[in-house]
Every structure is written in C-alpha cells, then in structure tokens.
C-alpha cells in the first residue's frame, strides 16, 4: 500500500497541495481527478520524488519511499519522456538495461498488441503511437503500482480504445493503479475509487460502487456537485 500523509507543496507563498492524505491499495484502480490546475500532476510528481515536497510523508508498505524503491512503482507521465532520436526498440532496450523488473515477454506482447514498429524512430511517430509506446514502457515493468498522468490526453479515439483495452486485460491485474485525469468520462467504467481535488485539497474520496448503489448517482453527477455547486 502506498500511503500519503499530510502532504504539502507550495511554490513560494502559493500553496499547490494542502494536507493531502490518501492511500493507494493494490487491486484498486483509483482516479485522481479535478479541474485543470488543481495539483494532480504536482501530486504525481511528489509521489515519484520528481519535485521536492514541503512536508508530509509517502510510504510503501510502511517504508519511506526512496529511489531504491522506484522499481515497485511504474510512472507513466503525460508525454513520452525518451529522447526523440531513439527507436521504439532502443527505448525498450534502455528500459531492459536500467530496470531489473523489466518484463521482456510482456513488452513483446504489448508491442504486438499496439501494432508498433520496433524500428520506428520516436520523432516520426504520431501522438497516439507515442502514447502507446509510453504505455508499453510503463506497463512492461513488473511493478506493484502504476501511476498514470493524463493517459488519454490528445490522442485519437482508436488509440484510446487500444489503451483502454489494456486496463481490462491481464496487464494491470492485481495492481494498484492511480490515474490522474480530468476526463472522467473516458475512464469511468474502469474505476474502483475516486479522489477529487479542488484547489490543492482533497474534497471527496469515495468508492464508485458505493455512490452508484447508495445514492444512485453516476460519478459525473458527483463531479458536478463538487465542481459546479
């Protein structure tokens, strides 16, 4: 379990994240949602230590998150963070070299599933194919948790369908998944739990099934209540 406790992050005097506390459990797909600029990406980056936090703690199974533990988490940012001169095969080779938990079989399966050309240079790929490579690199790690930042931003409907199919397949089975997005409609059917951010604070943290059963609402209705009161 990844546990985030009282996380604070500010730039100068401007608070971006205030008193954020929640957990990411295995076997759960969680959506971190909120309007633009509410701190979703900042929170993801704080969890991965890509920006320093002001205070608060982040632990994995009780141990402070350190760089040595990064192989337990796979972070899929909102863009393909590999040099553009590399080919798809070279990016896979880079990951295989640097990550002890790289799963080559899974990578080859995803390569075939996404219909990607190994010799294609990243600079020549479409945005949708770049997103697929991004997913391939992230999901081919045998991690316990997958963090995804805006996984569907700017990609066409067919690429989106391919990627969504991955969520319903074995690739993320039994894993803890945190998806940061404000396009709730695209991922609603995948979600177990929703964490809603507003102005850097958690305003609602609930299970999708509970809301549907107890209140008879769709998640989008809850969003309207929170963000358009």
């Amino acid at each position: 379990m990844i546990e985030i406790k009282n996380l604070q992050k500010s730039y100068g005097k401007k608070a971006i994240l205030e008193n954020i506390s929640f957990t990411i459990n295995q076997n759960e797909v969680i959506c971190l949602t909120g309007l633009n600029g509410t701190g979703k990406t900042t929170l993801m980056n704080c969890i991965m230590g890509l920006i320093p936090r002001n205070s608060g703690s982040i632990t994995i199974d009780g141990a402070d998150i350190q760089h040595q533990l990064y192989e337990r988490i796979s972070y899929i940012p909102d863009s393909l963070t590999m040099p553009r001169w590399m080919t798809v095969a070279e990016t896979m080779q880079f990951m295989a070299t640097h990550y002890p938990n790289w799963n080559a079989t899974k990578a080859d399966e995803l390569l075939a599933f996404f219909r990607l050309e190994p010799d294609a240079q990243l600079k020549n790929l479409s945005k949708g194919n770049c997103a697929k490579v991004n997913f391939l690199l992230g999901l081919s790690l045998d991690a316990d948790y997958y963090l995804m930042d805006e996984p569907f931003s700017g990609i066409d409907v067919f690429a989106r369908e391919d990627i969504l199919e991955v969520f319903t397949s074995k690739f993320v089975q039994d894993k803890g998944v945190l998806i940061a997005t404000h396009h709730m409609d695209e991922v609603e059917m995948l979600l177990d739990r929703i964490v809603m951010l507003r102005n850097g604070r958690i305003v609602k943290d609930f299970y999708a099934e509970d809301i549907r059963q107890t209140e008879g609402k769709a998640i989008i209705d809850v969003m309207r209540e929170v963000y358009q009161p």
Partner: protein
Amino acid sequence: MKKFMELWAFEWNRAKRFYGFLIILVAGLQAYAVFHEYRFWKGSYERMLRAGSENTLEGYLNNNGYISFDAVTNNSFFGFSIVTAIFCLLFYAVAIWYQDWTGKDRFSFRLLSLPGSRFSVYAAKFATIWLMITGLQALQIGLLFVEELIFSGLMPAGVYMDLPLQSVIPTSSPLSLALPGSFSSYLFYYSAGYAALTLGYTFILMHLSVRWRGVILAGVVASVLLVSALLFLRTGVSSFLYAEEKYWAAISIHTILFIAGTRINDYLLKNRISV
C-alpha cells in the same frame, strides 16, 4: 556501480556524434595549419629567390633562421582548433544537463525515476565530460606526432630543425593549456579545471532545483570562495609560504572545492531537484 556504468555508456553513446564532429574539426584545422605554414614558408622562400638578392638556401637561413615544428603550433589555425575544442566542451558540459531538462518530452522524468541512487546520473554525465577531455588530450598527442612527421617531410632537410615535442609545447599557450609540460602543471591546471566543472554543475543543479534564486545563491557562495582563495594565495598567510607550499595549498583548495561541490550536487539531486 552497474547503474553508473550503464548510464555512462548511454551518455557516451549520445555524445558520440558531437564528439566525432569535434575530432574532425580539430584534426582538420590542425592539418590545415601544417599546410598553411608550409605554404607560407614556400611563398617567402620563392619571393626571396625571385628578388635575387640571396638566392641560396644558405642565404635564406642567414636571414630567416631554421624552421621548426613550433611554427605550426603557433599558427593561428592550430591555436583556434584548441580554443574551439575548449569552447565546444564547455558548451556540451552545460548541454548535457539542459538537453534533459528542457523541451516538452523531458528525459529528466525517466532519469530521476530510475531505481537506485540518483548520484549515478550525475557521475555518468561528469565521467562523459572527463572522457571527452581525456580523449581529446590523447588525440592531441597523437596528432602532434603525425603533424610533425608530415611537416618535417614537406620541408627541405636543410631548413627544418628537429625539436623535441616537450620543448615545442610550451611555446604555444593554447597547446600548453591542453597538454601541460610537466606533471605538476598538469595536476595544477586539471585539478582547477575539474573543481571548476564541479562548481559549474552546482550552479546548474541549483538552477534546476530552485531556479534563479539558486543561481544567485550559488553565485554568492562561489564569489566568497573565490575571493577567499585569492586572498589566501596573494596576500596574508601565503606570503609566509614557499612556492612549493603555495602550490600544494592551491591543489588542496581545488580538492576541497571538488569534494564539497560533489557532495552538494549529490544532495541537490537526492532532495531538491525538480523536473
């Protein structure tokens, strides 16, 4: 260690094209300097023959003296090749960081998310620059032998005076900077150079951590360090020291700056850096 070696190989692979271009540029400019110097000599000799005043080689030597290889190393194209290499290396030493921290698809995300110590990222970049510098020095030594062979082959035997390379190197300032004449000078210049590179990286990492506030803070600290070092070496305490003691004091300062800078850089990468 494994992560460092793998990242070093990756960085080196990335620098290959730039480095290849630099090697061709340096070798090309120096080859041109050899032929330029030969043509210059030939032109002046032929002009003397045409003038008819002293139309023998002996007469020419009486007026102009022997030609030796230092004519090539003092040629402006030769000096330019070394100065260009130094500027290109300085450029790449900065670019090796900013190429990963600028633009849309920042590789810094991946580098900082790799499992294991982040110091390997720093060490790999530093070692790449070190290898580029050392490689160029080795290339320069090799080029000097080849250029000397070509130049002595082009010049008439009676005009060319063979000088050992050890006595040619100090006559050219850029060359003596690239290849110091003695081990003690080498240690002095290169310990200063690598300390400066480390502190330069502290500037860059401060900028990548806390942006311009970091650069200003690093600038203030660097200025204080520099002024203290100068005061130590030029005045006060150092006036009681012998030259050799001053030399070792300077080496010690370089070493302290190198170690302190490396530790600060390690801390910044672990705790303060931002993508």
